[in-house]
């Protein structure tokens, strides 16, 4: 069993015992999402978004596979084949709008999931590997979404592909050959479209594989919770099924209502009008912008406008843009505070709500705006804060902060906190994660 309070599977019927002895699939399901996975009982709605992200991926895979049956990855007819789907394929308009808006919904859900992790310290021991695998999933998603956006072969598809692969040309000496190698030519063309289609079909399944690892790694320490306090025993948990399957079902309903509103009543709201113009290598759109979910990173890329110490501005921008994601891989070690939940970290909480969140919102806005003042200056200030937040402020905050007293256990915090005794905390490292290792927790006396 993965952790001490996990339940053993006991088949209820002879048939299930027969299957389980030969292929322990019932056991796997029971321990993954059934009664065998005890989950902290105090999770709030932010914990719905992991399951929703999985649902979003499944929706993308199903709609994508059906769309691929009518789509043609050929520069001459790709755009027309998309219009064929929209006009002549049965429910083709629904599939395409669901797939296009599904990508947006996937990113909405994943961004909330990531910020949940940032606020509640889900990246901290013993869950670092879950965080790292999550970032790998995020990178795979971004690559998949970028290549998917190229497939309709509209103006933004073409020029987006041109600009994004052009980022690699900023690398000295080997940059230009890398761009040619990625595109299969000097400019985006049939070769680009075909390889992007191939990879766009492949990467979701790679993502699925990493998600299995992500969930597997989650099942070793078990889910975190809003207090950040470790599970002490059975009284702190409820079985995943039926408690969280029910709650996730409700969450899925809300997700689908928002999703359906987009598909049926505002299907092009998040898109760009220029992508309904067929790709034309001879006509550059006035403003080339990526999809909204890349705007924060696009703002960081464009914030670097001046060469520095013989490093060209473009290269600095590219390095910073990738660095903005890469630094998240080091987060478990950049923030050494032993307290996980932001609720008990007064200083961290201030920087999170009044620093990081406005900063990311400003970056998102500027990334979608044209590259002119005041947007460039705003994105320079916001980018500077973004790097300062993770690389300078977080490490310093964990050193000087005096966290609030933590509740003794999850069940106490759930039951009004009446029995909670203030545990003095904040002398810096009196409570280390070592004390929270599962197995050292006292088992409930029943």
């Amino acid at each position, binding site marked *: 069993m993965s952790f001490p309070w996990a339940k053993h599977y006991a088949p209820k019927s002879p048939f299930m015992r027969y299957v389980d002895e030969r292929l322990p699939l019932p056991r796997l399901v029971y321990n993954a999402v059934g009664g065998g996975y005890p989950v902290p009982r105090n999770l709030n709605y932010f914990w719905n978004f992991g399951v929703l992200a999985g649902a979003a991926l499944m929706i993308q895979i199903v709609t994508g596979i059906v769309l691929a049956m009518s789509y043609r990855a050929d520069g001459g007819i790709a755009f027309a084949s998309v219009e064929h789907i929209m006009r002549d394929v049965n429910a083709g308009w629904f599939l395409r709008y669901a797939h296009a808006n599904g990508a947006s919904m996937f990113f909405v859900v994943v961004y909330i999931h990531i910020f949940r992790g940032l606020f509640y310290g889900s990246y901290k021991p013993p869950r670092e590997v879950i965080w790292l695998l999550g970032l790998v999933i995020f990178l795979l998603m971004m690559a998949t979404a970028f290549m998917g956006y190229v497939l309709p072969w509209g103006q933004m598809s073409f020029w987006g592909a041109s600009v994004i692969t052009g980022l690699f040309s900023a690398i000295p000496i080997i940059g230009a050959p890398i761009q040619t190698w990625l595109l299969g030519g000097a400019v985006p063309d049939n070769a680009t479209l075909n390889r992007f289609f191939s990879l766009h079909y492949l990467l979701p399944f790679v993502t699925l594989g990493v998600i299995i690892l992500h969930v597997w790694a989650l099942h070793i320490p078990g889910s975190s919770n809003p207090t950040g306090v470790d599970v002490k025993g059975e009284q702190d948990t409820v079985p995943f099924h039926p408690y969280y399957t029910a709650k996730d*079902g*409700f969450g899925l309903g809300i997700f689908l209502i928002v999703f359906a509103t987009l598909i049926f009543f505002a299907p092009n709201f998040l898109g760009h009008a220029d992508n309904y113009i067929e790709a034309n290598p001879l006509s550059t759109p006035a403003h080339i912008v990526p999809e909204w979910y890349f705007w924060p990173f696009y703002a960081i890329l464009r*914030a670097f406008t001046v060469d520095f110490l013989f490093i060209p501005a473009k290269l600095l921008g590219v390095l910073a843009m990738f660095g903005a994601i890469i630094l998240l891989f080091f987060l478990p070690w*950049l923030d050494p505070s032993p307290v996980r939940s932001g609720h008990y970290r007064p200083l961290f909480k201030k920087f999170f709500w009044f620093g990081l969140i406005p900063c990311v919102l400003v970056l998102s806005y500027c990334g979608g705006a044209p590259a002119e003042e005041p947007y460039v200056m705003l994105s320079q200030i916001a980018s*500077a804060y973004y790097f300062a937040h993770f690389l300078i402020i977080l490490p310093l905050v964990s050193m000087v902060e005096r966290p609030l007293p933590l509740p003794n256990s999850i069940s106490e915090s759930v039951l009004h906190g009446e029995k909670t005794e203030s545990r003095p905390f904040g002398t810096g490292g009196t409570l280390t994660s070592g004390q929270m290792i599962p197995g050292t927790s006292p088992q409930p006396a029943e």
Partner: protein
Amino acid sequence: MVRLIGMFVGAGLVLVLLWSLLSGAIAVVREPAAETAEHAFHLYPRKVDFAHEGPLGRFDRQQLQRGFQVYKEVCASCHSLKYVAFRDLEQIGFSKAEVKAIARDWPIETQSVNPETGEAATRKSLAADRFPSPYANEVAARAANNNAIPPDQSLLTKARHDGPAYVYSLLTGYQRQPEKLLREFPDSKTGPGLHYNPYFANLNIAMAPPLTTPNQVSYADGTPATVDQMAKDVSAFLTWTAEPKLETRHQVGWAAMIFLLIFTTITYFAYQSIWADKKGPKRGSGKPTA
């Protein structure tokens, strides 16, 4: 160690960004961005109401048919409609026989080959054909239009921001260049072969005003054909050509919404009833209670 390197890298990036910010600020102060005629005189599309707007919107069939008449008699001589087929016109209220007649009598014939010699030829269109392009190819289109290609109109209202209002505003927006513009930007005088239109991105459009006089089209249903009415009707028609499944989408959308609301309500009560025995006097939010 990670934190030390991190702080070093972070400080470096912040430094470079502040340096960029400073240079940008100095540049703005020294040479403020020059105002352009496009920036000062460009107008956003005017507001216009259509029956297909809103979540309950349905097309006005009569209006679409009038819009089709405007397309046929005015736009079609230069603009193609290559993703729409004659048979699609049945969706806006034409009968099968009417569609056949429209296709057969369409002034531009469909490109084909002579069945005996194999040479390029044209033939009368069938209901299953898409609208034939007024030009044989791109070169011909450029040659006939002073090197500007008239864009295909099938997706026009989705390919422009606020498309239906944009098409309407553009068609009714032709005017003399304002005196103020010529005074402030003497270099921005509309060139030969161009026409001033504040709704067009660079203010000067190659297309000559297509709708100039009332009753340019005589509507079969007796609606007075003012320029404003014709512009509105053809915008509605082009909304349909860009999004022919709009009505189905709205209908399916309401069915889906009603289903999802019931589904979500049931899951909410299921969730509440399953959790009934687990919730304390007050749900733990994780917020500090002490």
